[in-house]
C-alpha cells in the first residue's frame, strides 16, 4: 500500500514524514519520532498508557491511525515540563508516590494535564472519573488522586499569585 505524506507538530516541533495510513499514531510517536514516553499497554483503548494530547484532547494513540492525525498538534509527556523545570503534576506524582513501575505514568500525567485545564479545582470524585481512562496496576490510584489534587492546588496558588 502506498505511503502518505504526514505533517505533525509534536511538542512544538514540526515533523514531516512518509507513513502507511494504517500506522498507529503510537508507533509513529515512539518509533519514528523516538519519543518513547507514551507506552503500549492494552491495544484496545482501555488502558490509556498511550495517552497523548492531540488538538487539545486526551487521546489513546494506539487507536488512532497516523493518517487521522495528519495535521494534528500533539503533546506527549516529553513536552510537559523539562528537566529542571518540571510541571507541577510531575513534581506532585513524585512527592505523593503516585507511581511505581512508571509504565502508566506518562499517559497518566498527560491525561491529568488536560483534565486540570478543563477542571482546575476538581473534587476527589471528579479526579477519579476524569482519570478513569487510565489504568494503573501498581498504585491502587490513591496516591495518583492525591498527587493530582495537590498539583491542582499548587497550580491554582501560582495562578492566583500571578493575577
Amino acid at each position, binding site marked *: *500500500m*502506498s505511503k*502518505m505524506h504526514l505533517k505533525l507538530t509534536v511538542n512544538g516541533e514540526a515533523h514531516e514524514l512518509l507513513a*502507511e*495510513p*494504517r500506522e*498507529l499514531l503510537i508507533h509513529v510517536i515512539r518509533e519514528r519520532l523516538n519519543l518513547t514516553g507514551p507506552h503500549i499497554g492494552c*491495544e*484496545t*483503548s*482501555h488502558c*490509556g498508557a498511550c*495517552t497523548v494530547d492531540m488538538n487539545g*484532547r*486526551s*487521546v*489513546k494513540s494506539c*487507536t*488512532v*491511525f497516523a*493518517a*487521522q492525525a*495528519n495535521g494534528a498538534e500533539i503533546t506527549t509527556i516529553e513536552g510537559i515540563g523539562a528537566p529542571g523545570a518540571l510541571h507541577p503534576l510531575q513534581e506532585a506524582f513524585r512527592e505523593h508516590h503516585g507511581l511505581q513501575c512508571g509504565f502508566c505514568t506518562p499517559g497518566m500525567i498527560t*491525561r491529568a494535564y488536560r*483534565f486540570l485545564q478543563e477542571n482546575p479545582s476538581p473534587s476527589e470524585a471528579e479526579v477519579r*472519573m*476524569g*482519570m*478513569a*481512562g487510565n489504568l494503573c496496576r501498581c498504585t491502587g490510584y490513591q496516591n495518583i488522586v492525591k498527587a493530582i489534587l495537590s498539583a491542582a492546588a499548587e497550580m491554582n496558588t501560582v495562578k492566583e499569585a500571578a493575577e
Partner: protein
Amino acid sequence: MIPAAFEYHRPTDLAAALATLGEFGDEARVVAGGHSLIPMMKLRMAEIGHVVDLQDIADLKGIRIDGTAVWIGAMTTQHELIGHQGLAAAAPILRETALQIADPQVRYVGTIGGNVANGDPGNDMPALMQCLDATFTLAGPNGSREVAARDFYEGAYVTLREDDEILTGIRFEATGGGQAYEKQKRKIGDYATAAAAAILKKDGTSCSAASIAMTNLSDMPVWSKAAGDALVGTACAAADIDAAVAAALGDISPNADNRGPVEFKRHVAGIIIRRAIEQAWARA
C-alpha cells in the same frame, strides 16, 4: 495487534465522501472517532480496503437548537455533547447518557453519529435516540432521506443505512419532561449489562406521556411502547411502574455473555428500568 493495510481518504465535503463510497462499494467504510472500528481492524476482525475519514467535513459538525428543535451533527463528539450548555437544558438525558459511555479519552473522539450508525447493540445512544423519538438523516447518491430511530435498527450491526449512505445528523424535538438514563456495567469502559432511558411528562399528578427504551437487552435497541402506555394516565405509583416494567421486559430478548446468563440480565433489566422510571418521574 496490527491492522491490515488500507487506502485512506479524507474528503472535505459530503459529496466527495459519498463519491468515494460509491466508487469502492462494500470495501469502503466511513470512520468517525474510530474507537469501535479501529480495535476491530487491529484484531483483524474487520478488513477494510478503503477508510473514509469524515473529520474534515464541516457540514457534519455542530449542535443547533431552535426552540424545541434540536439538530446534532453526526461528527459531534460525546465530549462536545457533555459540554454543551444549551443541550444540557434542552435534553439533559443526552449528557447523562454520554457521561456513562466509555471513558474520558474515548468520549473526546467518539461521536454520536458513529455510536448510532454502526448498529452495535452495546452502544448507548441508539436506545436514547429511540426514547427521544429522534430522526436520522442519511445522505446517499440520490440525495438525503430521513429514518426514525425507532425504525432504523434491524439486528446486531444491521440497520436501514445502505453501504453507500452516510448518517449526517440527528434531529429531535426537545419537549422536556423528567429524563433519566440508568446503566449497570461491570466497570468503566464496559458495555451495559442492562441500561434504560426514560422520559416522562407530568400533568398535575398524572403521567401525560412516557417513553422507555433499553440498551444491550436484545440484538438491537428496544423502544417499548407498551411500557410507556402502561404509565400514561397513571400517577406512576408502585403498581403502575410494576406494570410498565413487566411490559418492557416483554419486549426484550437479552443474550448470555461474560456479563451473565439471560435470567440474570432479565432480572437486572427489571431493576434498571424501574430505577430509570422512578428517577425520571422524580425529575418530571
